[in-house]
C-alpha cells in the first residue's frame, strides 16, 4: 500500500480516496443487487406474457424491451433525466406523491438501471418460458393445479437455468453501467458514484494505481460470476429431459 502512495500526497488524502472507492464499490453492489431483484420481479410477468401472448401488436412491446440493447446508454439516460425533471412525467408523479425528485438519487439510479438492463433479464426468461411449451402445464392443469400453482411448481423449477442466467446478466450488466448513471446520477461520491465512474475519475486524474485496483477487481469478479453461471447451467442442462 505505502509503496503505491504518491509521494506528494498526504496520508489523509489517500485514505479519503480509499474510502470513496469503498463507498463506490458498496453503492455499485447494492445497485446491481436491487436492480437484479427488481428486474426478476418485473421481468417474470413481462417475459411470461411475451412468451404466451398472441396479441397482434406484441412485436411493439418486444422491440421496446430490446431497445436498450442498441441505444447508447447516454440516450436512455438523457430521456430518463428529462422524464425525471420537474416537467417530465416521472418528475410530476414524484411531485404529486410529495417525495423528492428521482434525479441524482439512488432510487433514480435503480430506475435507470432497471430500464437499461431490462432486455438482459426478459430475453433469457422469455426463451426458457417458450422452451417449456404448453404440455407440462396442461398435464398439471388436468392434475388439479391452479394457474399460480402451475407457474410456481412447474414453470419456475423448469426455468432454473433461465432464472440463473437472467439474474446474473441483470446483475453483471448493472455492475458495468456508466452512461445512464452519469446522466441521471450526477456522480456524487458516497451517494450516486458507482465503480465504473470512480475508475473514470481516477484515470482522469492520472491515479492509475487506484484505477488498476478497482478495474482489476471488477474484471476478476465478473469473470468468476460468469464462470459460476456457465458451470451451473451445464449441470442444469444434464437434468433436462
Amino acid at each position, binding site marked *: 500500500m505505502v509503496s503505491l502512495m504518491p509521494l506528494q500526497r498526504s496520508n489523509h488524502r489517500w485514505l479519503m480516496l480509499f474510502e470513496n472507492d469503498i463507498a463506490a464499490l458498496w453503492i455499485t453492489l447494492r445497485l446491481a443487487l436491487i436492480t437484479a431483484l427488481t428486474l426478476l420481479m418485473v421481468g417474470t410477468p413481462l417475459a411470461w406474457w411475451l412468451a404466451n401472448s398472441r396479441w397482434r401488436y406484441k412485436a411493439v412491446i418486444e422491440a421496446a424491451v430490446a431497445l436498450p440493447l442498441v441505444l447508447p446508454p447516454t440516450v436512455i439516460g438523457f430521456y430518463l433525466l428529462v422524464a425525471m425533471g420537474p416537467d417530465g412525467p416521472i418528475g410530476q408523479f414524484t411531485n404529486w406523491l410529495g417525495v423528492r425528485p428521482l434525479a441524482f438519487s439512488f432510487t433514480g439510479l435503480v430506475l435507470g438501471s432497471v430500464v437499461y438492463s431490462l432486455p438482459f433479464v426478459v430475453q433469457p426468461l422469455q426463451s426458457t418460458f417458450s422452451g417449456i411449451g404448453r*404440455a*407440462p402445464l*396442461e*398435464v*398439471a*392443469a*388436468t*392434475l*388439479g*393445479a*391452479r*394457474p399460480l*400453482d*402451475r407457474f410456481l*411448481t*412447474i414453470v419456475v*423449477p*423448469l426455468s*432454473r437455468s433461465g432464472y440463473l442466467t437472467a439474474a446474473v446478466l441483470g446483475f453483471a450488466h448493472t455492475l458495468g453501467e456508466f452512461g445512464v448513471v452519469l446522466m441521471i446520477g450526477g456522480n456524487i461520491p458516497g451517494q450516486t458514484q458507482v465503480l465504473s465512474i470512480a475508475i473514470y475519475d481516477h484515470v482522469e486524474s492520472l491515479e492509475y494505481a487506484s484505477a488498476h485496483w478497482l478495474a482489476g477487481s471488477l474484471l476478476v469478479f465478473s469473470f468468476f460470476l460468469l464462470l459460476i453461471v456457465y458451470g451451473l447451467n451445464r449441470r442444469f442442462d444434464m*437434468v*433436462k*429431459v
Partner: protein
Amino acid sequence: MTIRANVSLSRGAFTLQAQFEAPGQGVTAVFGRSGSGKSTLLRALAGLETPQPGGAISVNGVTWLGQGINVPVHQRRVGYVFQEPGLFPHLCVRGNLEYALKRSVGRGAQRGGRDGVQGDVQGDVQRGVPAFDEVTALLGLENFLWRNPVTLSGGEKQRVAIARALLSSPALLLMDEPLAALDLHSKEEILPFLDRLFASAGIPVLYVSHAPDEVARLADHLLLMEEGTVLAQGPLADVLGRVDSPLARTDEAFSVIHCDIVELDGPCHLSVLSTAAGDRVYVPRITAGQRQDIRLRINARDVSLCNQRPVGSSILNILQATITQLSASDNKGQQLIQLRLAGSDELLLARISEYSCQQMGLINGMDIYCQIKAIALLC
C-alpha cells in the same frame, strides 16, 4: 350414470361437431383415423380447448360445461393420459405421483355445478382419494418410486403417467392413444396393466385409439369418429357388427366374440375354447395365468361361408350362424354379411364376394356355417 357431451369448435380448416352419450362406467373406445378429431374431442372434454357457446358436457350428473357454466380444467375431476407421458422432469417418480395426490383432495371439494334435471344420485357419490400404495401396486411401480423419470423406459414412463392420472381422483379418465408412442414390446408390457386397471378401478374411461387390436381388447363401448363428427356409438359388438359403419367399409372390419376356456393344454399345441353356444374353438396354446373370459378378434376378411357343414376341411374353426344382415356390394364387388352365432347374441362379420353371395343365394334368416381362417387372441 352417463357421460353426455355436445361440443363444437373449429381450429383452422378443421371442425369438430361431436355429440354423444357414453355409459358412466366401463371403457368407451373412441375410434377413428388420424385427423378425425378424437384428440380434439378429448381435449374439449378436459377443458383444454374452449368449445363454441351452446355446448354441454356432463359426467355422471356433474355439469362441466353448460348454460353459464364452464368449469376450468383444474376443477374438472378428470384424469388425462396423453400420448407422451409428460412426466415432470424436476420431480422423481414419487414426486410426480404425489403432485397429483396432493391436489386431488381440493379438487374433490370444488366440483362443477350439478345437473339438476338428471339428479343422478350415483354421480354425486364422493369417491375417496385413491390409496397411493394401491395404485402403485396396480401399475407395478413399487420398485422405481425414487427413480428420476429420465431413467425410465417408455412403457414405464407411461405407467407412471397412468398412475399419476389415477391419483388425481378423477371422475372420468381420458386416455389419448397412450400406447401409440410405444414400441411393440412396451405395448405388450403395458396391456396387462391396463386390463387390471379397467377391471378394478371402476372409473369410466374414454380411450382414444386407431388400433383395432386395442379397441377389441379393451373396450366395452365404441364411438366411431370421422371428420370431426361421431358417426356411430353403442356397445362394442353392436357397433362393430354394423355392416354400414365407416369401419365396415374398410378392409379392417372385424368382430369380437367372447369365449370360455375348456382345455388349456389341448392336442397339438392348441387350446380349446367354447363359445357361448358351446361350439368348440381351437386357438394356438394360451399360456396359463390368463383370465377366464377370452376375447377373440376375427377379421371379416378371414371368414368364409358354407351352405352345409364342411367335411374334410383343414380349417378347424367352424361355427353355425344365422344371416342377419347383408350390405350392398361395394365398388370392389365385395359384400359384408352380418351373422348371429347360433344360440347366442354374438355378431360376426364376413366379407365375401358379391358373386359367391349370388351363387349361394344368401338371404336374411338363412342358417349357414362360417369357416374362420384366422383368429387373433385378445386376452
